[in-house]
């Protein structure tokens, strides 16, 4: 019983900062502190009229979409290879691909910065961020897709090919349908990670900031903090929505693949 109370208190601790967001987003004062002064929606209204914010959002959406598609494609290859084939040095290769999951992000950021700017002498752009985001998102995609690919029997595809289908259409007709929910879940999660990612974008963005880099700039100005709260409220709401859809799909994918759900995609 006391364990349950502790667990619930722990959840409260986890959610405490997020719970404050909407409170200050609707608070009619420029200072982010208690006591509250009254309700307003003007901070949300300001979001509509800030054009710099819209440009940053557009960048972030483009980067997040490209990252989601590319890292999920790479994730499908790795998860399929990991689940359906045996090959030499498998554990080493898979471990190496999963490495960005634990590597400090600043290391990924500065090492790519050195390669792009100092060695290749290229300019920074949205594509440098996408390149780095795909690297850190692919392990998450693999972790999600592993569940979906685990119980697939390679002989099913072979049977389809024996019956005259090509290798690709065998994949499309036999393997793809059961793993589809996992793929959509992976797209949503990698999209969310990329949309939220700050430190890599901070190092690798050119003249056009992403949304988190733009927010980082705003945090220095006390006057703009209520707008950040309003923006944060919308972002958190969007993240929770996307993650909930992803979780529902992931579970559906697991049950389609006949895997016992152990919960959690990490």
């Amino acid at each position, binding site marked *: 019983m006391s*364990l*349950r109370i*502790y*667990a619930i208190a*722990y959840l409260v601790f*986890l959610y405490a*900062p997020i719970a*404050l967001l909407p409170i*200050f987003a609707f608070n009619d004062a420029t*200072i982010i*502190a*208690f*006591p509250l002064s009254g309700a307003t929606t003007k901070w949300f209204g300001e979001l509509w009229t800030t054009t710099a914010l819209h440009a940053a959002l557009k960048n972030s959406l483009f980067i997040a979409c490209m990252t989601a598609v590319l890292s999920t494609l*790479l994730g499908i*290859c*790795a998860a399929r*290879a990991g689940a*359906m*084939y*045996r*090959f*030499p040095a498998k554990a080493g*290769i898979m471990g*190496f*691909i999963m*490495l960005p999951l*634990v*590597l*400090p*992000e*600043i*290391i*990924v950021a*500065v*090492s*790519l*910065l*050195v*390669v792009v700017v*100092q060695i290749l002498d290229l300019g920074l752009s949205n594509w440098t961020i996408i390149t780095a985001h795909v*690297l850190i998102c*692919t392990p998450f995609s*693999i972790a999600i897709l592993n569940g979906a690919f685990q119980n697939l029997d390679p002989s099913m595809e072979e049977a389809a090919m024996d019956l005259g289908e090509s290798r690709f259409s065998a994949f499309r007709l036999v393997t793809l349908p059961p793993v589809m929910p996992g793929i959509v879940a992976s797209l949503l999660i990698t999209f969310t990670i990329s949309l*939220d990612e700050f*430190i890599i974008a901070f190092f690798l963005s050119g003249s056009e900031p992403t949304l988190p880099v733009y*927010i980082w700039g705003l*945090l220095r100005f006390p006057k703009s903090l209520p707008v*950040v709260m309003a923006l*944060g409220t919308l*972002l*958190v709401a969007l*993240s*929770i929505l996307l*993650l909930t859809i992803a*979780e529902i799909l992931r*579970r559906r994918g697991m049950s389609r693949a006949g895997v016992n759900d*152990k*919960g*959690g995609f*990490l």
Partner: protein
Amino acid sequence: MTSSESGRGLLMVSPPLVYALLLLAVPLGAIVLFSFWTQDFMTVDTTLTLNNYRELAEKPIYGALLGRSVYVSACVTVVTVIAAYPVAYFVSFHVRPARKSLWLFLITIPFWTSYLIRVFLWKVILGYNGVVNSGLINAGLIEEPLTFILYNVNAVIIALAHAFAPFAILPIFVALEKIDRSLLEASQDLGESKLMTFLRVTLPLSVPGVVAAVLIVFIPTIGDYVTPELMGGAGGKLVANMIQTQFLALNNAPLGAALAVVAMLSVTAISLVLILLNRRWLRGRT
């Protein structure tokens, strides 16, 4: 294993592998090479020297920063893992199987929502006029706002422990789930109390999960930039802040690269020690 199967497997894994080689292995190699070069005003001198490392060794600030980073990461790891263990235990042993994924989902959600804004909100909670201070003053417990909870190392530890909580819970949970429940019954049938069963059966069997949790919290926290920058004040900056300063503000990228390499090597060395200790411990038990 047939050769065509391994061939097809390698072919299938090659796109992500090549990607990781080109964009992880090559850049990591490049940053090591780069750390042996030197910044010469606007250009980079490509003669190989140990000057950057010499500077890191000679100026006490770098050693102090690295030491503080390791200390903060160690504190965060200890706090996070100890606070997380009971939650993982609760979800694994006391939650109905059908509800487990809901609990895990609730635990992971805050982790996926805007890191930047979450850290900033800790400033709101711990600040001079923050939630904690105004709450304690209203309750009549203190008269002056507490100042030791923001803009120092404590604040950094609190915010990081919050951010990495799910990272600690999940590996411990997985290890606890793997424990054969009949072992616990056997222990109690043989006369051990519930507490002794936990200490002599459950806890030792969950050690691999705890070690995984320690590593998965310790390694990324050492490179964290946002939390020390926002919460640390002047005395709470960590090695990542210095790396950023060298790269983006002082325009001395080679020195920043050397610092990144040293930080990476320290993390790897500490992790390897932990893994070896864990191996030895596991071998001692079987």
